Structures are given as C-alpha cells and as structure tokens.
C-alpha cells in the first residue's frame, strides 16, 4: 500500500487531523441528518391523517344517520327498503349477503387453496413450484370486474344446468367465483407458511418411519397452522370487501334469506348502488351509506386484527 505509507510519512497529512477536518465540514450535513426524522414523519403522517380523516367523516355521518334511524332498528331490522314511501333501514339483509357470499367463497377457496399449498410445498418438484407460484400470482392480479363478468355470463348459466331454480342473479355464483379469486392468495400464503417449516423437522419425522402424508398432516401443517389460518382470515377479509363480482352477478334485491339460489345484496354492492343512483346529500338514504360503510369497515378491521394476532403467534412457534 504505497499510498498509505506516503500519507503517513508525509507529516503534513495526519490521518487523525484529516478526519477531524472532515468532521468539522460535516456539521452542515449533520443538521440535515437531524431534520430527516421530522421530514419522514411528515410524509408518513399523510397516510395516517388521511385514515383519521376518513374514519372521522364516517363516524360523523354515521352519528347523523343514527339520529334519524335508531341504531337498534338498523342492526336488528331485516327489511331494507330505502326508496320506499315508508322507508325501512335494516342492515341485516346486507350483512346476510356479505356473510353468505364470503362463506361460499371460503368453502371454495380454503380447501382448494390449502391442497394447492400442500402440493406445492410438499410434493411438487422444484421445477413445478418455480413455474406454478408465479402463475398463481398472475391469477391474483386479474381485475375483479373480469371475475364478475365471468360469474354472470359463464358460471351462472353453467350452474343453472344443475340447479334449474337458480335465478339469473344469485349469491351462489359470485360466491364461488370470489372463492376462485381468493384461491391464489390462500395457496401462496399457506405455501409460504409451510415451506418455512424447517426441513430438519420433516427429516425428524421421516426418520421415525412416518409417510409423506403423515409428515404433512402431523408435522408440517400443525407447525404452519397459524400462517395457514392467517391466510384464511385474509381471504375472508378480501371476500367481505369484494365489490365488483357481487354487484354484477348478485343483483340488487335486498333479500333476507338463507336461499343461496336467490339474489342478495352485500354491503359493498349496496354502497355501489346508492352512490350510483342520485341520493340527495342530506337525505336519510345518503346517510345510510355511511352507516353501512362503517359496518363494513368494522367487519374488515376485525378480520385484519385477527390476522395480525394470529401471524404474530406464528412467529413465536419455532
């Protein structure tokens, strides 16, 4: 290192002094460095403030709504007739629609998603996994309006050949299609959870004479369980918030029923319908929008909190 030895030989350039000099020059930059946290805080607060803004607007308008319609009537009413001469604002038909469609979606997505994850993580060769996983992610990127269209023009007519009483708009078909939409997400997240189970655990079980199925069922899935459940919860929360598919394929009949062959409206679809029509600002129907949105917000919030809780537990497991 000739440069270095030159430097040290040359008494005029002392490394310690050099650093000291540079440090003094740096003092300006130091001020800048110090201002960075404040700057970043400001930027970060944009999204926090927006959220607070949205939630407080929701809350205020919801309170306004409950001045006109008693909160008990809203949450226990089974009749929703916002446009009638004698309007009635019961949210239960919408909750029914949302819960039913989400349950149908999960009945489709949970088993298929989990099986896909098991196949990819435990059985598929590296090559298959490397091709299928990105494909799944592409599938997750299909716009929901395409799924809605698909439910209305393809799945409903197809189902009608098996269930002749099926109505042209019904909750079953969009429920199934929502399930198909959620499969990639559940498969991908569950696969992540399962493949992060250390291989040494599989070896431990195999070494005791367990079959591959036993290893999967008794070691891998229990170890990845919280991750798998978290993926289910996220799936449900996605289904609850899904709008386009149900708006297109389930119509706008505000039925309070358990019959999945009938048209039902979800909370999201109601919001689309009311905002699409012209609800005069200040009318009860206008405020009902906020009350429904608030209910929906609470639903998804609850799901997200659950998902967080569960995935935190997951981190502690091994």
């Amino acid at each position, binding site marked *: 290192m000739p440069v270095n030895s030159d430097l040290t030989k040359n008494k005029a350039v002392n490394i310690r002094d050099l650093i000291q000099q540079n440090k003094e020059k740096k003092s300006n930059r130091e001020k800048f460095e110090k201002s960075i946290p404040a700057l970043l805080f400001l930027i970060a607060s944009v999204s926090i403030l927006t959220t607070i803004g949205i939630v407080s607007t929701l809350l205020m308008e919801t309170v306004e709504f409950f001045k006109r319609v008693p909160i008990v009537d809203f949450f226990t009413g089974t009749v929703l007739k916002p446009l009638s001469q004698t309007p009635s604002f019961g949210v239960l038909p919408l909750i029914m629609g949302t819960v039913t469609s989400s349950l149908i979606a999960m009945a489709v997505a949970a088993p298929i998603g989990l099986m896909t994850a098991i196949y990819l993580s435990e059985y598929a*060769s*590296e090559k298959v996994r490397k091709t299928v996983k990105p494909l799944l992610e592409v599938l997750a990127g299909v716009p929901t309006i395409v799924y809605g269209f698909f439910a209305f023009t393809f799945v409903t007519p197809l189902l009608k050949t098996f269930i002749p009483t099926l109505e042209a708009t019904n909750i079953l078909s969009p429920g199934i299609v929502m399930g198909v939409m959620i499969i990639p997400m559940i498969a991908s997240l569950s696969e992540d959870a399962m493949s992060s189970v*250390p291989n*040494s*655990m599989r*070896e*431990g*079980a*195999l*070494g*005791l*004479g*367990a*079959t591959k199925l*036993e290893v999967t069922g*008794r*070691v891998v899935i*229990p*170890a990845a369980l919280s991750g798998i459940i978290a993926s289910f919860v996220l799936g449900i929360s996605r289904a609850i918030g899904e709008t386009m598919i149900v708006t297109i394929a389930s119509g706008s009949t505000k039925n309070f029923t358990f019959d999945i062959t009938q048209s039902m409206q979800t909370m999201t679809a109601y919001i689309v319908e009311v905002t699409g029509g012209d609800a005069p600002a200040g009318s009860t129907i206008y405020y009902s929008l906020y009350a429904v949105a608030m209910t929906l917000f609470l639903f998804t919030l609850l799901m997200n909190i659950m998902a967080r809780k569960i995935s935190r537990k997951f981190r502690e*497991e*091994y």
Partner: protein
Amino acid sequence: MTLLKERIGDVQLRVMDNTNWRKPVYETNGLNLWYGASHALKNINLSINEKEVTAIIGPSGCGKSTYLKTLNRMVEMVPDVNISGNITFKGNNILGKEMPVEMLRSKVGMVFQKPNPFPKSIYENIAFGPKIHGIKNKATLDMIVEDSLKKAALWDEVKDRLHKSAYGLSGGQQQRLCIARCLAIDPEVILMDEPTSALDPVSTHKVEELISSIKNDVTIAIVTHNMQQASRISDRTAFFLNGEIIEVNSTATIFNNPNDRLTNDYINGRFG
C-alpha cells in the same frame, strides 16, 4: 465363588474383544453413490455389528453423512441421486423395492447434528413415533414416554413439564429429547450424525453416557469429528477419506496402531 466370577468375567471380556463374534446387522457391499455427476461414495464395504458402537470418522466432505443417510434411505430425498451396490439390513436387501422405507425407518432411528424437536410438547415429541405406528392407548403411550425419557436420562429434568413446548429445553436437553424420541419406537439401530457437535462439553458428556447405557440394547452407528469421542465410546471405527473407506478396525487398533499411514496421519491431526 468370587474367583469363579472373576474367571467368567475374564472369559466374557475376551469374547467381547473378538469383534468378529458379533452378528452383522448391516452389511454393505460395493456401494457406490453419485450426487448427479459427483461420485460421493466409492466402493464401500462395511458391516455394522449388532449391539456395537461403530464410529465413522474422516475429514469434512468425505461422505460420512451420505453413508449414514444411505443406511435409512434418507439420501434418496435428494433429487438426482444414483446408487449401486447393495446394502442388507438383517439379511434383507434395502436398496431394492422389497422393503418399504417406512418399515426400515421404524426399525432404524436417526439422530441429527442439530437437535430437531417438533414444535409440540415434550410428551407429544416422544409419543409421535409410537402414534404414527398405531399405538393409541393412553396408558401405553404414557409408559413409553416415561421409559424413553428415563433411558435418555432426561426424565428427572422434564417430568414436571411434559406438556410444555420442547422448545423451552436447552440445546443439550433437546438433543437428548431427540434420542428419547428415537428410543420410543424401540429401534434396533440408531444412526447418529455428529449428535454432539452443537453441544457444550457437559451436554456432550451426558449424551456419551447415554450412548454407553443403551448400547447393550441397540446397535449404534455414529459419525463424529471428535477423535476422543470416537475412542471413548466406540467399539469399531471406520475411517473414510474422499468417499472411500481407508480402514475399518477395532477402535483400539485404529487409535493405537492403525494399519494405514493415512489413518495414522488423520487421527494425529496431520491432515488437511
């Protein structure tokens, strides 16, 4: 009377010394193994005798783990593995398709370098093997759990927290738990791949004691980098180098006057 006892003891000692007297459990003949194009095991001939501790020593990458994993066919999980030659377990060829791997592995336990308990309770870890082999009776399972933990000298340390997570145990305790988990299926052979390399000296000592205490019931093949360990606990030692066996002999011979110069160099640390 005492005189007689001494004489019998003497006779038995002499018989024990003669290692050929032992029945082989595993016999390996002309075994070759390739990972893709790399030739990892070359013409291996080795027998592992009943109720003996066979130590496998050799420098890193010489194929010790590969050989051990071939004995319970775990090596076949690696894609692109090719095996030729034959290995018999109690007279049955294991490399063919006659014997299901699960059957073989229920008779041959394995202990790994890093303790790998399942993320379950201590009790469930031990009961896992018996359960997958169809033992469901609670009383039987309780008995197996207690018995295995006692054999592994872990019972006193964990008897009050059997239903707590196995992850609350120390590394040394976890390794003994893994040995207990193995013992729970009452295997005829236990394969151990550097079972103490991740442990402190005290835990290592406990595991070594454990090995000595179970060797009357089970056959043990142990890979180790620790020469003192091999000489302390094993009856026979095989020295591997670059995928070949250089020398197999009684442990005393290997460590006192090995036949091969390479063995001598290795055990004396004169080796790369």
